[in-house]
């Protein structure tokens, strides 16, 4: 950018007009690998703050009955369950996205079809794993929702 200003030095008499920028996201049709790339960063950032949930649970268990009771109560509220469900998906998605990046780190899977396949597998895999985890935990949360807010 500094170079552009310097090269315009001969035209200093004229005020500098805003120069056109190179085209960015707006000119691209969304591809699945682009969406998964964005989601990898978004889920990473979400997991960053989600780490507080895990920390709060462990710290409260180490702290006192009343703290543990508060955290357990919050986790069992409708909002708490939705947050935990979202956190589960976010962690699973980032995990599988990381594995996809490991495959790409070995310089494999860069053919166009394989890029799309790996991207779709990340999404389908994260949804499947989230579903399996919450299905396994069903005995825990079934009493929390039936008759309470469903």
């Amino acid at each position, binding site marked *: 950018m500094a170079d552009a200003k310097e090269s315009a030095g001969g035209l200093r008499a004229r005020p500098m007009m805003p120069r056109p920028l190179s085209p960015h996201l707006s000119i691209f049709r969304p591809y699945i690998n682009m969406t998964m790339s964005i989601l990898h*960063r978004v889920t*990473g*950032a979400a*997991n*960053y703050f989600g*780490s*507080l949930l*895990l*920390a709060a649970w*462990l*710290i409260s*268990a*180490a*702290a006192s*009955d009343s703290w*543990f009771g508060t955290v*357990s109560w919050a986790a*069992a509220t409708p909002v708490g369950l939705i947050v935990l469900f979202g956190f589960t998906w976010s*962690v699973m998605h980032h*995990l599988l996205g*990381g*594995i996809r*990046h*490991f495959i790409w*780190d070995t310089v494999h899977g860069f053919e166009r079809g394989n890029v799309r396949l790996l991207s779709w597998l990340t999404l389908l895999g994260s949804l499947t794993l989230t579903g399996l*985890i919450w299905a*396994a*935990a069903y005995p*825990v*949360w079934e009493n929390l929702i039936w008759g309470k807010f469903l």
Partner: protein
Amino acid sequence: MTGYRTPLKNVRGLGSAKRGTEHFWLQRVTAAANIVLIAFLVYTALTLAGAPKPEVKAFFSQPIAAVFGVLLAISVSVHMRIGMQVIIEDYVHGASKVPMLLLNTFFSIFVGAATVLAVTKLFLGV
């Protein structure tokens, strides 16, 4: 462009910034560790979901569970610090950049340290 480095500099392979790939490599090392550690977390969560406090304490009184819990806290806090650093460097410019990088470091270390302490206390049962 190739003629300005001494042979010693080339052999060391460090480049002008003295460092290059540690950041990338540490992100991969912690990512690989996190695959195993998140599997442990899923197992822990499914074992202890809805469990009363004594069960949580009993679970983490097992040395293996306590070790995995401590490793999870360390690996995740290192990984998330590097990741958020990249996000901040990409999007935050100007006066708030360095304070946010510091805040990121402090937050990550705080979460990691607090979780390690909690797991340690649960393990010791004090």
